[in-house]
């Protein structure tokens, strides 16, 4: 589904990613772990198309198509979803209006009719229930005054609504207590299918107790220095990152 080939990226002439290779197939869950500053968030931003980063070498390929020239919204229309570590607050735009706009823009871009209001409402309710989201929450301004847990739950709610092919969860566990973590992880697991894939980016092994990865990669200094199965996460938890340097 997603192939990252020898990806080099920089920001303000500073090289951050120095040759990343990844191959994620439909139905798989991959985890990327690594210490602070290793390039984890850069990798997710580059896949999602953030313009501040310059791809200097290599490519990101989704279902055979090179994403290089595509704007972030075009990547979203093709099925890439990035759950933000720090979701942005947008006062004055309700969660419902925001997700309606996002869904209908995606439908428009992929040649579909706008979703009728009735169906939209039904879908919103269905997904809100899935993530144990209070209905009142949906008429609040997007992320404004939300707790850390509410913000992350709202991210996964949007993911549920948009039904992406590849979901990238960037530090989704940060700022979550254990109950919120379970709800979020549970939501992700319910959305998981043989047709989509998940890339979990995390600093700690904790989230991986709930979202079980098929593969774990260790990112260090802009390169993947080790890959393995889920047991690699436990090893990292025990030994730290130093032994890999």
């Amino acid at each position, binding site marked *: 589904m997603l192939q990252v080939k020898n990806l080099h990226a920089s920001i303000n002439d500073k090289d951050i990613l120095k040759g990343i290779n990844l191959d994620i197939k439909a139905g798989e869950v991959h985890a990327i772990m690594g210490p602070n500053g290793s390039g984890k968030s850069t990798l997710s931003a580059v896949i999602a198309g953030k313009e501040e980063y310059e791809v200097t070498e290599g490519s990101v390929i989704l279902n055979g198509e090179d994403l290089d020239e595509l704007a*972030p919204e075009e990547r979203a229309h093709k099925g890439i979803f990035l759950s933000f570590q720090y979701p942005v607050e947008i006062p004055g735009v309700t969660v419902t209006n925001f997700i309606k706009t*996002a869904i209908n823009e995606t439908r428009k871009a992929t040649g579909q009719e706008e979703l009728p209001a009735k169906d939209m409402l039904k879908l919103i309710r269905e997904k809100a229930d899935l993530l144990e989201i209070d209905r009142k929450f949906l008429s609040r301004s997007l992320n404004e005054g939300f707790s850390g847990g509410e913000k992350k739950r709202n991210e996964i709610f949007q993911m549920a609504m948009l039904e992406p092919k590849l979901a990238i969860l960037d530090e989704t566990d940060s700022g979550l207590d254990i109950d919120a973590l379970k709800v979020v992880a549970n939501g992700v697991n319910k959305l998981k299918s043989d047709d989509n894939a998940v890339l979990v980016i995390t600093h700690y092994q904790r989230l991986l107790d709930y979202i079980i990865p098929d593969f774990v990669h260790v990112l260090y200094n802009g390169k993947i220095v080790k890959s393995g199965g889920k047991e690699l996460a436990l090893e990292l938890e025990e030994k730290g990152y130093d032994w890999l340097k």
Partner: protein
Amino acid sequence: MDLKEKLVSSFLAFENKGGLDLDSKAHSIRRQAIQNFEQKGFPSKKDEEWKYTSLRPLLKHDFSLFPSNEKAVEFKNIKQYLINDIESYTLIFIDGVFSSFLSSTTHDDCDVCVLSSALTRPKYKMIVDNYFNTIAKNNNSLAELNTAFTSEGAFINIPKNTIVEKPIQIVHFSTGSEKEILLQPRNLVVVGENSHVQIIERHQNLSKNTTFTNSVTEIFLHKRAIVDFYKIQNDTVNSSLIDSTFISQKTQSVASVNTFSFGGNITRNNLEFYQEGEHINSNLNGISILNGKKHVDNHTLVNHKHPNCESHELYKGIYAEKSTGVFNGKVKVQQAAQKTNAFQQNNNILINDGATINAKPQLEIFADDVKCSHGCTIGQLDESALFYMQSRGIPKEEAKALLLFAFANDVVEKIKIPQLKSRITKLIAKNLGVNLGFEL
């Protein structure tokens, strides 16, 4: 002959053109005002209050002061500038002349009519003598100029204990009957104890000719009166407006002025609140969304003179292309005004490098037991918010518009007339060049 000389020398002709009561107190005020104007002249950029707004290009025009030609205007020509989906009283002025044909006035429970008749009829003499030009005389030479030539405008007199159910729309049209015209409408609004009125005011040029409007409004609120005033400024690029609005409030009254500036060449709003009692609430809200070379200057003053009063001020600005904005918000808290709550906020977004905002919050506090705050920001669109929205499939241009909409939204939320709110929302969407799938 420059414009000042022309105006001063026209005063005699103005007196002689008929229709004025030359023995009235109001006329002695006019005479004093023309002398004051002659002494002060137009403000220049050397005046601190006019540092960022130059009238010079405007004053070069050879304005007609008393239009001689009449141009017929039909309702269909002006319909789009009115809020039509509500019942309202309307006061329509065409090139400074009241059109009874297009207007809908009343004398039933309250007076919604014109100043020209109030100035000459014995019935209203006491009101005019008591209120006219009692708060508009604050060292403002343009207000003096307007006072000197006062002849027409809205006269709204609400007796006590009266809720005026229908909003009042005051709309001044210029038709282009003269190549360059100077209009000086003068409005007087007196609201009695416990009474409530909503007013919508607009100036609209129907032609491509040049219009310069120098408008003055005085509003008096008695005890517990409530006034909601809305100013829609979306005129053509050949139209300039200097609006001076003065508000005097008695105990427990609530006055709100909401200014929506989207168009015009040079727009200057002088908005002054004088609190003459306790437990008064003064609200000032504004949005400016400008492009091209448009210029909007909001100069506000809240004068807290007595204890236990509040003021809430919120002005937002979005400036694109080579537009310029000025915000100068002065809050005075006098020594006697203990327990004052005064809040001021001014937020600005500059879309392009060529756009300018000059923001100047000014707090003068002489009392020691008060809560006063002010915040002023100037920024660009938040790139991380844009990326966030794009990553959810919303194209960049729409994401920008949505963010700007959201930015302006808390001012729109202050509008208490739903039909007006929807109209303003549409105007904002149009000015931002978007078609949103929902109403905020």
